[in-house]
């Protein structure tokens, strides 16, 4: 049983879809303390000596196991910087679920900055899910600045799903990846901002090995007075394939800056970028209204579908 209150449990559900202690290896961090931790035969979670983070070691060949490392914060005024390192052994096939939920009812800012580093062994497969969520009525901001570094060895594959739909006031996300021969990276980012929120997402993906590939796709919605910046750079240093896409909807007075960038340093690097920003198409709203939805219901359905 976890020693957590109702708000903490609710945050845990939002960010990690957990109602209780998860199966497999896990560490649950609440208000800067570990409130539950378990390792398994194949996955070892070791706290860092300074208490600010974890080292997760996944044995070579580990199949179909998962690691959950959610973070929840309910005290106003906490500011923390956490380092988590993941070592994924050769041929392993695992799912890692991270995520951070902040409930801030106070007037001081709450901030969680998590630096995650992934060292992915030969032919290993990783599915990584990271959800961010904020709630609370206080005037203190909810701030999340995740840094992600991914180092992929030959033939490895990483799929990352990054979701931030609600309640985070300020976020500055930085992701860098380096891919060796035949390594594959897929990123799906979904983001919605509202109020006066500010979200910056920066990617630098270096395709260093022959046959490596990256597909970085962001879908986002900026509502009310919020601002987003999506900055994705793919660097082709070998015969490789890279694709990046930013597809955004703006509403109300929302603003978005998309800065896709490609750098080819090898004649056989094939890199593509796409970026589109616009409001919801009027005919989409009209179509749903002819099915009996109100204008507001139609907008909600269109956004839900877009961010699904």
């Amino acid at each position, binding site marked *: 049983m976890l020693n957590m209150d109702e708000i903490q449990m609710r945050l845990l559900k939002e960010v990690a879809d957990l109602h209780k202690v998860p199966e497999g290896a896990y560490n649950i961090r609440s208000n800067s303390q570990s409130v539950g931790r378990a390792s398994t035969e194949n996955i070892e979670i070791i706290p860092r000596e300074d208490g600010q983070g974890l080292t997760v070691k996944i044995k070579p060949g580990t199949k179909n196991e998962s690691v959950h490392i959610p973070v929840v914060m309910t005290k106003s005024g906490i500011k923390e910087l956490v380092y988590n390192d993941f070592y994924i052994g050769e041929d392993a096939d695992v799912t890692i679920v991270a995520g951070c939920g902040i409930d801030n009812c106070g007037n001081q800012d709450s901030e969680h900055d998590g630096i995650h580093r992934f060292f992915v062994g030969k032919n290993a497969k990783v599915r990584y899910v990271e959800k961010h969520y904020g709630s609370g009525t206080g005037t203190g901001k909810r701030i999340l600045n995740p840094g992600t570094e991914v180092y992929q060895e030959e033939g490895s594959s990483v799929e990352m799903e990054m979701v931030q739909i609600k309640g985070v006031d300020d976020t500055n996300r930085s992701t860098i990846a380096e891919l060796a021969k035949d390594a594959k990276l897929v990123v799906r980012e979904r983001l919605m901002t509202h109020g006066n929120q500010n979200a910056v997402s920066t990617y630098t993906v270096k395709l260093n090995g022959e046959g490596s590939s990256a597909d970085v796709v962001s*879908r986002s919605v900026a509502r009310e007075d919020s601002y987003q910046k999506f900055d994705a750079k793919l660097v082709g240093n070998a015969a490789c394939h890279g694709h990046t896409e930013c*597809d955004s909807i703006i509403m109300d007075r929302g603003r978005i800056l998309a800065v896709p960038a490609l750098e080819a340093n090898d004649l056989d690097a094939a890199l593509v970028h796409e970026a589109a920003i616009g409001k919801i*198409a009027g*005919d*989409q709203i*009209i*179509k*749903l*209204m*002819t*099915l*009996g*939805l*109100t*204008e507001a219901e139609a907008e909600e*359905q*269109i956004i*839900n*579908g*877009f*961010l*699904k």
Partner: protein
Amino acid sequence: MLELKNISFKVDSEGKDKEIISDVSLVIPDEKLVVITGPNGGGKSTLARLIAGIEKPDSGKILLDGEDITELSITERARKGIGFAFQQPVRFKGIQVFDLIKLATGKNITMTDACAYLSAVGLCARDYIDREVNSSLSGGELKRIEIATVLAKGSRLSVFDEPEAGIDLWSFQNLIEVFDGMRKKIRGGSIMIISHQERILDIADEIIVIKNGSIAEQGSKDEILPSLMGTADAVPECKRSGVRKDVEESC
């Protein structure tokens, strides 16, 4: 029964008013299939959009079963029983075929229920139900899904704006069967189709010819269709598609 009384509609064209619909009065009776035909630019699609509430007339009244719906919004008209299939179906990123059919029914339906509507328009349901309604679907597929949403909505009056536009000959043959099936199960509702197609005109109870924003001819199929044969208002499908240009008469 839908009734248009003295409907006029103008648009602004280079600073001048241009009348698209001039004083049109017509009736779509219950349990009838009415086909509206006439030259391109004559105002047919505008008429359909006025009925759905996408455009508002400058003058005149629209009555549904005697109730004045002229000032009602698109949503209110839809809820009162008007269905509308777009000439160019709308694409949605992320919304799946199942989602759209579910929204159309307004109920929490099962996959099996949704599949029945897709089968009714000749689509193999399991291949489509979880597809996104986006550019990965062909014109013919989108058109049939569009028609499936109107079927799923279950309207008192269903309006189809040029269902033949943008689809291939093979898909068109299938669509005729869909409309023929709807015609046979028309009880309690009525259907209005805007079309130039001889085979669609052929399943009509009544035909209305719109030219230059006004009604040029109106009557039962047997009265009107013979005079339209061989004109641009009743085109055999094989000629439209350019399949057999060598044949002069019919094909």
